[in-house]
């Protein structure tokens, strides 16, 4: 290098701003499906804090929609335009894993587990084929929501068995009120309510140990028969419901009881908002003495950057940041009462319990966490996951079978047999 060139470089170093010469920050993109503005704002708040504390990393969020992500993510990844981190539910992960877009995060999850102690079932939902394919972030579970004053007025106790549940729904169906709002749409919401009934009727397993389907069994038929018997106590438009309509039905006092992940937010902002008159209970079981269970969606985040890349390392740092107790509660409370912790220290975190809405509805949230102890998800119950469950879930076969019973009037035993045939067809 000539002395003149050296002088020029030295002069440039003095004139140019420091960041130009410094190593460029690693940029990572997070895709998530929490699109409502207040959730985006809360995630951005946490991202801003992380970026400020980690000048060598820039995290950006791009909210997506559950409705399109199943088509969009594979296309974007194939075109090299995918994100570095992508939120997931258990039946979404096998799709990307089968595309070869994921590498196991087992070591990272073990490291986080040692620090925060994950709820076992949350990790199990992503553990199969010799790896762990996503890092659990939060849990969503379904419960029976009601107003104690409404039940008291009708002289009805909180139901714990199917028989009590049906009797309560019948007693509460009066004066323009429906006893039990249950959907029958061919939609994920109906999958969730149907499976919650199946689970409490001894039909939690869809697969045998060897991977063959066992959907068509007497317990499943009994669950569908029971569900059918509850439909007269549900509003006539229930066959077209998704989550929003059910919540509106409850908030407007048109439905005395509904099955839902949470109603707290809607009850607080669109109904009377009286915490003392909001009840939540485990979903009733078929026979007294059984342990109640519920459908559980352990939401997680998949890491898509190549192993050992700076993007992967930056993504792991961000996820570790989110799971730190002082941040984790604020992350979960982007929708208070909906997202539940999947770590032991998160469940006790001050940042979780100090939220004003959580404080107001503390007893309900404690009950939700207690109900979640026996959470299961169809197709992810036996410790082994069969990839065809993604197609079965995507086609809403549980809901489709219910529609066959409720809308087409097919006897439950016949509809369940057809449901199993449909699952087999989708599994090929």
């Amino acid at each position: 290098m000539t002395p003149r060139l050296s002088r020029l470089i030295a002069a440039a170093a003095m004139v140019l701003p420091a960041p130009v010469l410094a190593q460029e920050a690693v940029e990572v993109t997070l895709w998530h499906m929490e699109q409502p503005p207040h959730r985006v704002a809360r995630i951005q708040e946490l991202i801003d804090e992380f970026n400020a504390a980690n000048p060598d990393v820039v995290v950006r969020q791009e909210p997506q929609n559950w409705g399109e992500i199943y088509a969009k993510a594979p296309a974007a990844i194939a075109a090299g335009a995918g994100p570095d981190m992508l939120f997931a539910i258990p039946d979404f992960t096998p799709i990307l894993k089968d595309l070869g877009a994921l590498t196991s995060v087992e070591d990272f999850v073990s490291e986080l587990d040692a620090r925060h102690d994950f709820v076992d079932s949350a990790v199990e939902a992503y553990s199969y084929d010799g790896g762990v394919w996503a890092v659990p972030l939060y849990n969503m579970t379904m419960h029976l929501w009601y107003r104690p004053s409404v039940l008291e007025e009708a002289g009805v106790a909180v139901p714990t068995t199917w028989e009590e549940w049906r009797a309560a729904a019948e007693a509460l169906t009066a004066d323009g009120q429906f006893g039990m709002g249950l959907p029958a749409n061919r939609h994920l919401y109906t999958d969730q309510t149907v499976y919650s009934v199946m689970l409490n009727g001894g039909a939690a397993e869809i697969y045998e140990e060897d991977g063959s389907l066992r959907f068509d069994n007497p317990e499943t038929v009994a669950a569908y028969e029971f569900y059918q018997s509850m439909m007269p106590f549900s509003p006539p438009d229930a066959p077209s419901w998704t989550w929003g309509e059910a919540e509106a039905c409850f908030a407007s006092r048109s439905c005395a009881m509904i099955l839902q992940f949470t109603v707290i937010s809607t009850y607080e902002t669109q109904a009377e908002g009286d915490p003392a008159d909001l009840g939540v209970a485990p979903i009733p079981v078929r026979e007294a003495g059984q342990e109640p269970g519920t459908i559980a969606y352990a939401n997680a985040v998949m890491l898509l950057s190549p192993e050992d890349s700076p993007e992967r390392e930056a993504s792991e740092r961000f996820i570790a940041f989110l799971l730190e107790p002082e941040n984790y509660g604020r992350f979960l409370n982007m929708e208070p009462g909906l997202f539940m912790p999947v770590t032991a220290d998160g469940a006790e975190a001050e940042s979780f319990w100090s939220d004003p809405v959580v404080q107001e509805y503390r007893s309900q949230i404690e009950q939700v966490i207690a109900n979640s102890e026996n959470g299961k998800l169809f197709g992810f119950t036996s410790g082994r996951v069969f990839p065809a469950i993604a197609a079965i879930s995507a086609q809403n076969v549980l809901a489709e079978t219910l529609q066959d019973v409720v809308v087409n009037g097919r006897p439950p035993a016949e509809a369940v047999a057809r449901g199993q045939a449909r699952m087999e067809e989708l599994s090929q």
Partner: protein
Amino acid sequence: MTAAWRLLLGAGIVFFVLLIGLPFWWVVTGSFKVPQEIIARTPTFIPRSFTLQHYDLLLSASAYGTYLLNSLLVAAASTLLTLLLAVPAAYAFFRIEFRGRATLYRLILLAYAFPSIVVLVPLFATFARLGLVDTRLALVLVNTAFALPFAIWMLRAFFAQIPPEIEEAARLDGGPPLVVLWRILLPLIAPGLGAVAIFAFVSAWTEYVFASVLILTDALRTLPVGFAGIIGQYQVNWGLLLAGATLAILPVVALFALIGRWFVTGLTEGAVK
């Protein structure tokens, strides 16, 4: 017309006005109600409350304005490009004799034979190679491609209705084809241009599938996709939904107000003496 027929006709008109107008009334008035009244067990036809809280929340706490602007840009550009391409194409199908003209004219409608979802993934890959993923241009191109066949069909039909004497007279006066097209024929097919513009605009304004997949960043989202995210999945804010739907109607209503009258203009009224 007898009084009985007039009564029947009047009743029919009232029925259809109510059928079409009531949902709009419901959406617009609902957007000004408080949340409790929106979801009340007994619906209120005339609002009992008035609030701007849903509009306030929509415009202050969400990117609704950005989505609206993106939709306006994409729909306007798609409409313009559709017209720019459809007019010469339709004129060529109408005026120029070439081998396979009739077959090609029928074939262009094949574009509607395939559901858009079928071409989604290959189109994504193609656009990714061209660097067009996550750009408004990608949406403009897709919207134009899907609006164009129908636009060509429609405009050719309008060209075919122009009395040949008009074009011949212009030619005899020495007008070159492009001048004849621009100065003589286009004003005569103004209702067709209006219809095509409305069709292209509304198609682009409501397009969801491609906009949801080809756009990755929030700042470039169009209204249908962005709005679907705002209203939520597990929890639906009904007030926000109604306020957003009300605002989304306005540009389309404005477009109809501006060029809707072209529909009722006589096609060649007074052109041939």
